[in-house]
């Protein structure tokens, strides 16, 4: 009896609980639902970037046999949008179109040929307006406004000064400034957007399955745009093929799908193409960062003065939040007191960006880490040493009131320094080879959610029945990040049970508790904590039942997972027996667990919007990147990456590693090959040929070190694992390239044409100097 032990699952590598479905082809994604009589949806899109709609004639299309319904802007006068303060977008354009590809109509027909024919019959009359494809054009004096309520095409201007920047810069021994351009990036999750809407005309009831990271937000927006009661809608999120932020807000795809299903009085499947997925966009905005940093001779940072301009596309989306994040999260990695920020989010005639992985932080972190690399170079100080001079010491609050209780950055830097053999390699790799380092951080869930209603941040239900299995009910969207596995682990760990006792039901609004969604790395932290709370509540019920049967006080019951006993010599009760005891009188048990953030984590009140950036905990990352540059083609090869991330506690070390590798590699794409390109607002790179997500061949080995700083508020000490390591790759790469070729790439991505230009400029400069 004595060797009975509770099962441990935390800290043990766990394959994903939904892995077998995925590797066997059984996992169903939105496009895989093929009910009988399903209609095909297709979207009519604007051929022009900016125009007044004069007339959209759908009569010929409607008359086509096989067409069951067509909707246009006329069918929906309710705007939608993720931020309650910025809902100005309609599922289909109404008065004006503001980017090329903006939806104007959606057809439901019996088959794809008919749907396509119908689109060909739609006639669109418009009066073209001047269109602006760059932030500077949109802000020019004579530019007309895209939206009447946004004069000068400024979606949001953010201004703050914390401390006294001017005098701190005056006190500095060295001040450097540089302007960096980071082009627009797209998620290119492998699953194109898809939705299937089933309208029950008899009951006036709508069921929608959609590829989304935020089924709750989709639910609200469906109710709003359909003008239906929320209670008459059900939203289900099937398996989804990645997110990275492209579906962290309700998209027009699911709204049009539902609207046209209601019009057609049936079921419609709307699966958009890869090109349309690029047009739907919601990626990372093009970002120009002007960064100025002052330092003392000893390397301590005295002040940071920076400006950010983001090209925001035709609609608001998350824009206000993105430009605020860019300002607030300059803090939190290093210690400095003085900072001044000016952020401009500009409206342009391009597809609207969104909240991509590393939301808001990536461009600024790149600029910061690249500039301090140059500074340490000029100070003749090792860049790792430079960073050490500027560490924070936790627990602390940053100058803009970010609450930091755990800070594993020193250990991360130690790890990458040692594992990469930094000290031997730095400066000694020979020509055209180089090594670079950088650091970054990211939040573990935004402390204040965008749709804040006073409910807890996260809720978990556990259902226990006579069969002694536990059903975990969670609205937290599993999008491949492994969240269902982690939540299951948390429950299993508290109860000391094997994970196989627990099965989960996820993201079905009819069954699972509301959840805000999969974004800002909130699930492990917030839902994990709610799961621990729920499991403790369940454990209490079980202990009390066992105590009744064992005739002892609850505090004397020892819970060993599969066995509950009163004293160590006792035979005890099996889990099944305890469950039956607990069910006596009460019947099936459902317990609940909640989680809420604490007010101290809600960010600063020093400037308007200062809550954006507040989080319960921040994860840290450092990485070293080693590169070779081809002297003839200027092609950069990433030979190897060493990355260490402070995840607080690695609940599932296997998926922590997977998430960190995925983030690093996604950073690599942005650093060396990815960018969206437009020709007069038409996306030239709207395919996976011209938008270059890295392939197997040039993707490097990525060695991961996991640092555990055990955050006091995290579930078992955990923080985020899936975003932090993206942004530090980019500066680590340009720092490595600078080390290799002696010129520093400034604008991204570092494609061979850009790099060759820089190298040739340097060479001709040198030649000139020698002459």
């Amino acid at each position, binding site marked *: 009896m004595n060797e009975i032990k509770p099962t441990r699952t935390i800290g043990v590598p766990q394959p994903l609980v939904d892995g077998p479905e995925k590797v066997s082809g059984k996992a169903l994604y939105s496009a895989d639902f093929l009910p009988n009589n399903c209609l095909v949806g297709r979207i009519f899109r604007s051929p022009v970037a900016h125009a007044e709609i004069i007339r959209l004639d759908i009569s010929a299309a409607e008359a086509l046999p096989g067409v069951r319904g067509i909707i246009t802007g006329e069918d929906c006068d309710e705007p939608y949008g993720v931020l309650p303060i910025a809902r100005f977008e309609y599922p289909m354009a109404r008065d004006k179109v503001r980017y090329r590809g903006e939806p104007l109509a959606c057809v439901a027909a019996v088959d794809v040929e008919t749907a396509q024919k119908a689109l060909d019959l739609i006639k669109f009359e418009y009066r073209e307006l001047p269109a602006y494809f760059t932030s500077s054009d949109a802000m020019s004096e004579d530019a007309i406004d895209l939206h009447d309520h946004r004069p000068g095409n400024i979606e949001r201007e953010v201004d703050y000064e914390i401390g006294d920047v001017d005098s701190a810069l005056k006190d500095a021994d060295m001040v450097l400034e540089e302007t960096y351009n980071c082009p627009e990036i797209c998620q290119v999750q492998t699953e194109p957007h898809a939705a299937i809407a089933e309208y029950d005309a008899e009951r006036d009831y709508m069921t929608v399955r959609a590829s989304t990271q935020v089924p709750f937000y989709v639910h609200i927006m469906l109710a709003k745009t359909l003008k239906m009661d929320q209670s008459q809608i059900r939203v289900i999120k099937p398996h989804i093929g990645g997110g990275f932020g492209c579906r962290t807000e309700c998209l027009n795809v699911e709204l049009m799908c539902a609207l046209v299903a209601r019009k057609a009085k049936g079921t419609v499947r709307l699966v958009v193409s890869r090109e349309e997925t690029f047009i739907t966009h919601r990626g990372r905005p093009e970002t120009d960062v002007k960064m100025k940093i002052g330092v003392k001779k000893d390397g301590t940072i005295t002040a940071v003065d920076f400006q950010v301009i983001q090209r925001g596309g035709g609609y608001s989306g998350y824009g206000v939040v993105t430009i605020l994040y860019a300002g607030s999260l300059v803090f939190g990695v290093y210690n400095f007191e003085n900072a001044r920020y000016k952020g401009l989010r500009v409206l342009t005639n391009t597809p609207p960006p969104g909240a991509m992985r590393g939301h808001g932080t990536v461009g600024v972190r790149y600029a910061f880490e690249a500039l301090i690399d140059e500074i340490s170079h000029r100070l003749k100080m090792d860049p790792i040493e430079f960073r050490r001079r500027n560490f924070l010491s936790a627990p602390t609050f940053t100058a803009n009131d970010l609450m930091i209780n755990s800070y594993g950055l020193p250990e991360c830097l130690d790890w990458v320094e040692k594992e990469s053999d930094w000290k031997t390699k730095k400066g000694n790799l020979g020509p055209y080879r180089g090594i670079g380092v950088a650091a970054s951080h990211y939040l573990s869930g935004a402390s204040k959610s965008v749709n804040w209603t006073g409910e807890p941040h996260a809720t978990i239900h556990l259902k226990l029945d006579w069969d002694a299995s536990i059903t975990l009910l969670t609205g937290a969207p599993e999008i491949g990040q492994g969240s269902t596995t982690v939540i299951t682990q948390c429950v299993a760990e508290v109860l000391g049970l094997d994970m196989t006792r627990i099965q989960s039901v996820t993201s079905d609004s009819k069954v699972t508790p509301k959840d805000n969604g999969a974004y800002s790395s909130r699930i492990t932290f917030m839902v994990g904590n709610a799961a621990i709370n729920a499991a403790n509540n369940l454990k209490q019920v079980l202990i009390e039942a066992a105590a009744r049967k064992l005739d002892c006080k609850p505090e004397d019951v020892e819970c060993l997972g599969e066995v509950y006993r009163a004293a160590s010599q006792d035979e005890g009760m099996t889990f099944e027996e305890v469950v039956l005891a607990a069910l006596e009188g009460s019947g099936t048990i459902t317990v609940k667990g909640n989680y809420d953030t604490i007010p101290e984590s809600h960010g600063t009140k020093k400037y308007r919007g200062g809550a954006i950036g507040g989080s319960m905990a921040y994860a840290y990352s450092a990485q070293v990147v080693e590169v070779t540059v081809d002297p003839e083609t200027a092609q950069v090869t990433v030979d190897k990456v060493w990355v260490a991330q402070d995840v607080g506690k690695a609940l599932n070390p296997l998926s922590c590693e997977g998430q960190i590798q995925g983030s690093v590699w996604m950073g690599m794409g942005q650093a060396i090959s990815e960018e969206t390109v437009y020709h007069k607002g038409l996306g*030239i790179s709207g395919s996976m040929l011209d938008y270059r997500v890295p392939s197997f061949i040039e993707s490097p080995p990525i060695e991961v070190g996991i640092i555990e700083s055990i955050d006091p508020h995290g579930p078992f000490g955990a923080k985020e694992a899936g975003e932090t390591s993206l942004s530090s790759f980019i500066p680590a790469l340009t720092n490595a390239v600078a080390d290799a070729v002696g010129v520093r790439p400034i604008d991204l991505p570092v494609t061979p044409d850009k790099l060759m230009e820089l190298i040739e400029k340097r060479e001709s400069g040198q030649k000139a100097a020698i002459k």
Partner: protein
Amino acid sequence: MEFMPNFQLHRPETIEEALEARMDNDEALYVAGGTDMLVNVRRGIEQPKNLVDLSAIHGMKSITLNSEGLHIGAGVTLKELHGHEAVVKNYTAISHSAKAVAGSTHQMYGTVGGNLCLDTRCLFYNQSEWWRQSNDYCLKERGDTCHVAPGGKRCFAAFSGDMAPSMLVYEAEVDIAGEGSIKRVPLKNLYNNDGLDHLTLKPGELVTAVHLPQELAGDQSAYEKARIRGSIDFPLAGVAVRLRKSVDGTIEDLAIALTAVNPYPQIVSGLEGLIGTKLSEESAMQVRDTVRKQAKPMRTTTVAPWYRRRVIGAIAKRLLEELAG
């Protein structure tokens, strides 16, 4: 369900049947592996009423060695080609080329014929129907301006097949089946310097095979392409070099051909001066500059033309130096 325009499929089993199917039907096009043709059909770039599938023709699928040289059926897949012993050993650049096409899966069923007859490419052309329509099409297809060189009346879409330059440096010939006959012509005669109409094939003509001459078998050669990613990407610029040298390093024969920088795969001219000499840093530089001069990349890709021109010279020089040892 993906949208596909309507067409009738024909599956001839012989070359004669293929020619018949092509000539007897309106708006008929050939498809081999389909790795390019079906992309274009899906995008509405090609709108055939009839598609003549060449994959059931048995007579075009083998590689055979005879006294004249190596005979490669047009239906041979790129994978069969790059793994073939005689190709690897005697016509190395051709193996390099086949391995450099797209990704491994494309090589499994993409064919030699399809690669040689590949349509020219341009970022204003290889787009969806909606895209091209929104951009008023272009000279190459349904439109009346070129977005790359708006004033002109020429199309600069770049021929971007990886195979052709390697075959050109080996002085390959192709068999072309047409009405009633099969003729053999130098591969270089298959191409025109015109992005609109880069193949000299007459309507209905079919490439059935490629011949590599025995005389050049065993000459050293190599192919390299500039691309951003290590796979999938079409070449931004591609160079094949064949070099024969004597024991003391004197150049006896040299050929260089380019792809992706002109509307047709191009043999570099003006290299005669190197024959009978040993390669020096200076002559290698001259080759580099000659290549750069003859390459005329235009803004048909997202990567800047000036880079493609710089890099194609640099690669040519590097390959030449490597081969010259």
